[in-house]
């Protein structure tokens, strides 16, 4: 047995020696290279450069600085049909600093002011225009055309470039990541949208199982979908603007490729393709279409006519067909003056790819492959919206000009600048971001839920929201493909952080080092490609194009040309990129199966930085890392020096990436991972030892971390959120991770380190319930503070009167009761800060005018108007304290009062807690300290957790966290539990032994009640526990009697309305099954909506108590107890001309 093991070890040892010797050789040749153990330090360097929400901010900056100018340039001229000489031309556009106009005074605003005053944090958009006024040509500068909401910490935000102290003086938290907007006082995030990439060929199977090659073309003007379908051995072109599928051969003929041979050559003259194309040719011949003209006529007859109403020029059928082929089909391939060569080559390539799949040479493309995805960020989404609004703005101007200039005689000169209404753009943008409804008319796009309110439950929740990616897939569809984790998502999307339930896998989160690209200029790239030997495709014949050594070069889905040695081209290109000659985010990907080189510089590609490896040596050395640590070097320097580069998903296919230095194969490896911890996102990065946990546990923690109460920001006491949960004594976790320090979770933590004993106690700990120590709670464990906003606005009425806040009547006169009611209020009708308020007391005394309708003539009569009291009552479960009163006004200068009411809560039975391992539990019992078990040092646990929580959950990470934390506490240092690393268990165990504890982490505990030692050792130590926002106080509800709904007279629904508890259908069924008819009667009628109806025995109708109009008699009326809802139903039926009759019999007739 031993010998066999020895034999097995031998070759390994030899290998080891080989490696060692190799290492020595290399050491002789070069400078000694130590392993870069601290290469993870690149991650904080990366985050320092780009921040946590870099993708949002960069995208928004791109919009403001570049995209707006492009949009204006594309729509630069406004003309007028009535006056041909009239024009308005935009010369330039720029965005100012965030400001607000109040009473014609423009003043700068800070984000915090916007939050407090319910303003929109927006900046004016200025344009320079040249336009005609009568005969003159004028130039006007800095004309405001609207206001655009500004993303916090973007280039135009006033917070950028400010240091911590300046931020603090602006009322801003230095740790706040920015990247969101403030719309009417609420913070809203534009979520990252995931989409299938545009302008790329994707081969898929359609619903009928036919293969098709689909391209979604997208240009500024148009979005369209072109498919080639392979059905019954023939290929057809399918497009929305065509009424039926067109045989491909006819399309080619219409695209000026008339000879069959040429078409076949374009597609590929390999026998297998030629064979496959025969049916297409036959089909074409059978339709008797030979010439281009015939083909165009055929297509023209199939064009779907959208044009509604009148059109100026009725075009011929042939023109129609040409128009569609030029502008609509594959619209991203430009056609100049009806030269269709580019398009025919592209179409031929599509056919070729379709045939390779149809002939089983390759398989269909994977739609879920992340290289086929693009992420749309705030900038792109806003640019879509802005362009639409800008077009509308210009159309409005044009319409106005048409209207005014078409009038024969005008009083004054027409000055169009005076007609510019900034509201179109301002309100459009504000409403879109404020509601999340994105309506773009050009693309007939209507999407809801693009933006969401930034969750400020905890710091982690806010951060997690900024990295969220949502996809457009329907949530209801039961498809697994888009939901499952794809291999290509490695390092880009967090494998743990996704919600459970319907949106599982559709909502994702970016990994720590993922970066989303913005658009880069194509022009210089195209020039560079031609310099590097790319030859224009239109110059080649079909056979040359399809030569096996010739690679097609695509740039953003457009065919640039072909190259004779693609790998040489790709290598040179990469070299240039590393030298900085090409943008760092341009990707190049050689696809050998398709003989294509794909270049991409479009926006929304997701990429990540990797260390470049050359000749088996990573280019980043420990010296670089040291320089980084000393701040002598920035991450961007490493990129510039060509030591680190960004790879997108497609380019990763051309790379061999080693996970660690030991894995480097000198002949093959091209890149080295920066750190494996970077595959996790922000939320999963908080978990210690996540690689020891069962994976769903990490997912649960990702969801739960967002509900943990903790610190929200350094400015948490200045904020006026509707609901704020704040932990009194939040602690940084004893077992930290590297991600925690990167994202500064240790500065704004969301939990406390509790001493946890894993043992059973009392039976109040079944089903994950926790036992808490009363003394720990007394000393401040889990103590939190709930601050709720109560906002009151004063209205102004059309007749000039308005609401007022004034001195409550009781302060001078009034009864004992009303004195109590207004006890918290001061002279001005506002509450006293620091006052204790009980339910039923007023926190604001408001009066509204009695008469708001009649128009007042004089100031005097306005003053004479009477007022009705309208006090605002506090409705809380318990006493609370007035925390702050904010008195301000919103832009329409209506007074606004925000009363923040604070409540301090200690944990109670039923409150929810969770560790960082997806192990949640409610408090089942609070035990006095003397009854808690204790060890020989006198340590009592804060929490007792039932050991049954472990076996089925398999959260080994939690055990490791306890061990690490216990050893850390003893040695007085924070321990590290980073994913795929962290302090090893052995170290922790030996540390425990050093300090005189059992290496197992278990202690002898004595029962607090009997004083005897417990029969077993107990695993005890500190674990970081989070208090979750779900507290019984907010949920507890019971009702004996209370309010009823007006219509049905049944008890109201829901806790907020003090509603009843419903006895539903299933419960009713149980009672029926059991036969408890009287109980049913009681529950469903007597305790609900019993009503005495009067029924006329003769006609069977519900009538009034003493007269039946139908029978004209009062003799037969009998009282009848029925549910009110039943009576209502009968009456509603009667209103529909259905007469339900109740037939009564005398009860004691027998």
């Amino acid at each position: 047995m031993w010998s066999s093991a020895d034999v097995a070890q031998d070759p390994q040892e030899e290998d080891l020696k080989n490696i060692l010797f190799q290492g020595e050789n290399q050491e002789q040749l070069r400078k000694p290279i130590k392993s870069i153990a601290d290469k993870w330090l690149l991650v904080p360097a990366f985050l320092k450069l780009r921040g946590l929400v870099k993708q949002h901010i960069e995208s928004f900056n791109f919009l403001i600085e570049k995209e707006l100018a492009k949009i204006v340039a594309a729509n630069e001229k406004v003309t007028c049909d009535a006056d041909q000489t009239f024009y308005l031309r935009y010369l330039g556009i720029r965005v100012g600093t965030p400001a607000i106009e109040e009473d014609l005074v423009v003043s700068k605003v800070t984000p915090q002011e916007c939050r407090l005053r319910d303003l929109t944090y927006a900046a004016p958009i200025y344009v320079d225009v040249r336009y005609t006024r009568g005969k003159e040509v004028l130039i006007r500068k800095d004309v405001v055309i609207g206001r655009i909401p500004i993303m916090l910490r973007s280039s135009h935000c006033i917070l950028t470039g400010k240091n911590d102290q300046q931020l603090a003086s602006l009322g801003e938290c230095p740790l706040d990541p920015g990247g969101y907007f403030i719309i009417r006082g609420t913070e809203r995030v534009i979520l990252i949208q995931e989409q299938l990439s545009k302008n790329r060929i994707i081969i898929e199977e359609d619903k009928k199982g036919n293969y098709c090659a689909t391209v979604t073309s997208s240009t500024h003007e148009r979005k369209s979908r072109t498919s080639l379908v392979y059905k019954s051995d023939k290929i057809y072109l399918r497009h929305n603007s065509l009424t039926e599928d067109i045989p491909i051969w006819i399309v080619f003929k219409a695209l000026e490729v008339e000879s069959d041979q040429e078409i076949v050559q374009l597609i590929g003259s390999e026998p297998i393709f030629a064979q496959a194309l025969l049916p297409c040719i036959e089909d074409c011949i059978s339709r008797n279409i030979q010439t281009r003209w015939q083909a165009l006529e055929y297509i023209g007859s199939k064009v779907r006519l959208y044009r509604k109403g009148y059109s100026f020029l009725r075009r011929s059928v042939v023109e129609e067909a040409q128009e569609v082929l030029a502008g609509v089909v594959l619209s991203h391939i430009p056609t100049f003056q009806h030269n269709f060569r580019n398009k025919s080559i592209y179409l031929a390539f599509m056919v070729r790819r379709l045939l390779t799949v149809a002939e089983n040479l390759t398989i269909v493309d994977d739609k879920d492959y992340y290289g086929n995805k693009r992420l749309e960020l705030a900038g792109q989404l806003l640019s879509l919206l802005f362009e639409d609004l800008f077009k509308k703005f210009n159309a409005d101007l044009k319409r106005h000009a048409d209207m005014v200039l078409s009038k024969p005689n005008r009083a004054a000169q027409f000055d169009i600048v005076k007609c510019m209404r900034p509201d179109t753009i301002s309100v459009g943008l504000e409403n879109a971001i404020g509601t999340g409804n994105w309506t773009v008319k050009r693309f007939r796009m209507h999407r809801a839920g693009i933006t969401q309110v930034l969750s400020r439950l905890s710091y982690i929740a806010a951060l997690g929201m900024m990295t969220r990616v949502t996809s457009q897939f329907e949530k209801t569809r039961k498809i697994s493909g888009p939901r499952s984790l794809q291999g290509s998502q490695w390092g880009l999307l967090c494998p743990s952080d996704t919600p459970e339930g319907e949106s599982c896998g559709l909502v994702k989160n970016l990994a720590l080092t993922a970066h989303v690209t913005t658009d880069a200029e194509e022009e210089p790239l195209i020039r560079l490609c031609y310099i590097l030997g790319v030859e224009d495709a239109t110059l080649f014949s079909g056979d040359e194009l399809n030569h096996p050594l010739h690679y097609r070069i695509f740039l953003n889905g457009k065919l640039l040309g072909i190259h004779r040695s693609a790998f040489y081209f790709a290598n040179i290109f990469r070299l240039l990129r590393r030298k900085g000659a090409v943008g760092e985010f341009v990707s190049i990907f050689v696809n050998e199966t398709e003989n294509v080189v794909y270049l991409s510089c479009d926006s929304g590609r997701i990429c990540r930085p990797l260390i470049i490896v050359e000749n088996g040596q990573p280019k980043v050395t420990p010296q670089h890392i040291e320089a980084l640590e000393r701040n002598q070097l920035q991450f961007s320097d490493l990129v510039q020096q060509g030591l680190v580069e960004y790879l997108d998903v497609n380019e990763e296919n051309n790379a061999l990436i080693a996970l660690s230095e030991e894995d480097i194969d000198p002949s093959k490896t091209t890149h080295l991972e920066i750190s494996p911890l970077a595959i996790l996102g922000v939320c999963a990065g908080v978990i210690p030892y996540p690689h020891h946990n069962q994976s769903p546990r990490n997912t649960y923690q990702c969801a739960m971390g967002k509900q943990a109460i903790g610190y929200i920001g350094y400015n948490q006491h200045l904020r006026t959120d509707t609901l704020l949960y704040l932990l009194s004594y939040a602690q940084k976790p004893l077992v930290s991770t590297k991600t925690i320090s990167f994202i500064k979770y240790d500065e704004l933590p969301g939990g406390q380190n509790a001493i946890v004993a894993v043992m059973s106690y009392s039976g109040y700990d079944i089903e994950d319930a926790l036992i808490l120590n009363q003394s720990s709670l007394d000393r401040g464990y889990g103590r939190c503070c709930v601050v709720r906003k109560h906002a009151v606005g004063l209205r102004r009425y059309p007749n000039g009167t308005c609401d007022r806040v004034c001195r409550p009547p009781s302060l001078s006169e009034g009864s004992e009761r009303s004195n109590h009611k207004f006890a918290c209020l001061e002279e001005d009708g506002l509450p006293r800060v620091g006052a204790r308020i009980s339910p039923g007391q007023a926190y604001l005394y408001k009066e509204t005018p009695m008469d708001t309708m009649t128009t007042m003539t004089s100031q005097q009569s306005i003053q004479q108007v009477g007022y009705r009291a309208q006090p605002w009552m506090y409705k809380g479960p318990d006493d609370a304290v007035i925390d702050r009163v904010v008195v301000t006004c919103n832009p329409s200068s209506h007074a606004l009062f925000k009363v923040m009411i604070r409540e301090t809560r200690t944990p109670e039975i039923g409150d929810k807690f969770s560790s960082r391992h997806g192990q949640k539990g409610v408090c089942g019992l609070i035990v006095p300290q003397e009854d808690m078990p204790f060890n020989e040092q006198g340590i009592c646990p804060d929490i007792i957790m039932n050991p049954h929580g472990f076996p089925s959950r398999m959260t080994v990470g939690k055990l490791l966290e306890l061990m690490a934390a216990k050893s850390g506490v003893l040695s007085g240092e924070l321990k590290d539990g980073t994913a795929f690393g962290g302090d090893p268990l052995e170290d922790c165990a030996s540390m425990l032994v050093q300090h005189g504890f059992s290496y197992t982490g278990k202690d002898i505990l004595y029962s607090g009640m009997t004083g005897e030692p417990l029969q077993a050792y107990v695993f005890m130590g500190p674990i970081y526990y989070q208090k979750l926002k779900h507290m019984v106080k907010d949920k507890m509800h019971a009702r004996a009697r209370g309010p009823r709904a007006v219509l049905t007279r049944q008890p109201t629904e829901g806790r907020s309305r003090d509603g009843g508890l419903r006895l539903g259908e299933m419960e009713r069924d149980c009672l029926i099954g059991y036969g408890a008819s009287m109980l049913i009667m009681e529950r469903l009628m007597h305790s609900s909506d019993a009503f005495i109806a009067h029924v006329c025995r003769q006609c069977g109708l519900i009538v009034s108590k003493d007269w039946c109009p139908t029978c004209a008699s009062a003799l037969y009326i009998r009282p009848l107890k029925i549910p009110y809802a039943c009576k209502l139903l009968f009456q509603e039926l009667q209103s529909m001309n259905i007469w339900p009759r109740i037939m009564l019999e005398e009860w004691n007739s027998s």
Partner: protein
Amino acid sequence: MPNARTPSIHIQRQTFHEMDFIIKDTDTSVANAIRRVAIAEVPTMAIDLVHIQVNTSCLHDEFLAHRLGLVPLTSHRVDEFEYTRDCPYCSDHCLHCSVTFSLDVQCTTDEETVTVTSQDLVNSDATESQLAASVQPVHLSLEKDHMESSSSGIVLAKLAKGQRIQLTAIAKKGIGKEHAKWSPVCTISYKTDPTVQFDLTKLNAVLSERAKRALVASSDECLAIDPKTNQLVYETAFIRGRISLPLDCVKKMTILVSECAGDPCAVLVYNNDPNQFYFSLETTGALSSEDVLRHTLRVVQRKLNQLSAHLQSTFQENLHALF
């Protein structure tokens, strides 16, 4: 014939804050009663009511009040105070049942934040009564010299420029059962001698080097080999009573010792005195460690007295009922 025992206390180490002692010749129940009473039922003084006049600090009122409550107050004359609820002299609170402190700190400098500590609590009743003057905050701090009066005090809050805290705090008498702030002890615990241990001198003499190592391996880190002397020693965890010898280890020892021709029974030492409790006690500073123990025993005693008094009265009632 077992005799009634007389328990005894042997103090091993004693400072103002800490005390280690042994209680001999008694039961777990008594030892545990002492522990429980010390935690929950020894009265001390602690701040219970806070009137906040000005608080512009970053901590809100409840937060500050909670912190104030946890400041230990010297309570060596606590017995002379009444519980407020049954104070015969007043209806609200008075000098017989409470002590009033005031605190007024303001930060005026721009450079540094002002730290409000327990030292800023001024006993405003000190001039009026000797008894009230005896109640003072305990200025524990993290520094080593927390015995000395020069310690910096317990931090209550920190103030930036322009911030001010002005309040009066009323300390009352109470017990740990009501709130942990009235508990006079930080920790109090006891341990017993290990039930089974080895006579290491005999064992070292008998066992070979290899046998020693084998024994250590099976001992779950209770035993170790001293690298200098090559002798078996106990690990600290075992000495402190945090772990005990596993059954496997004892079995192994019998095998090893009999292999080396020794008598396993001679090596085994049973706990001959299970009625010995090694206590350790640490106070919050409200009472001296000695006082804690004294008060504890007094509380226990009073309970028993009350019980016997009750018994007496019950007898009497029964007598009345009979006749």
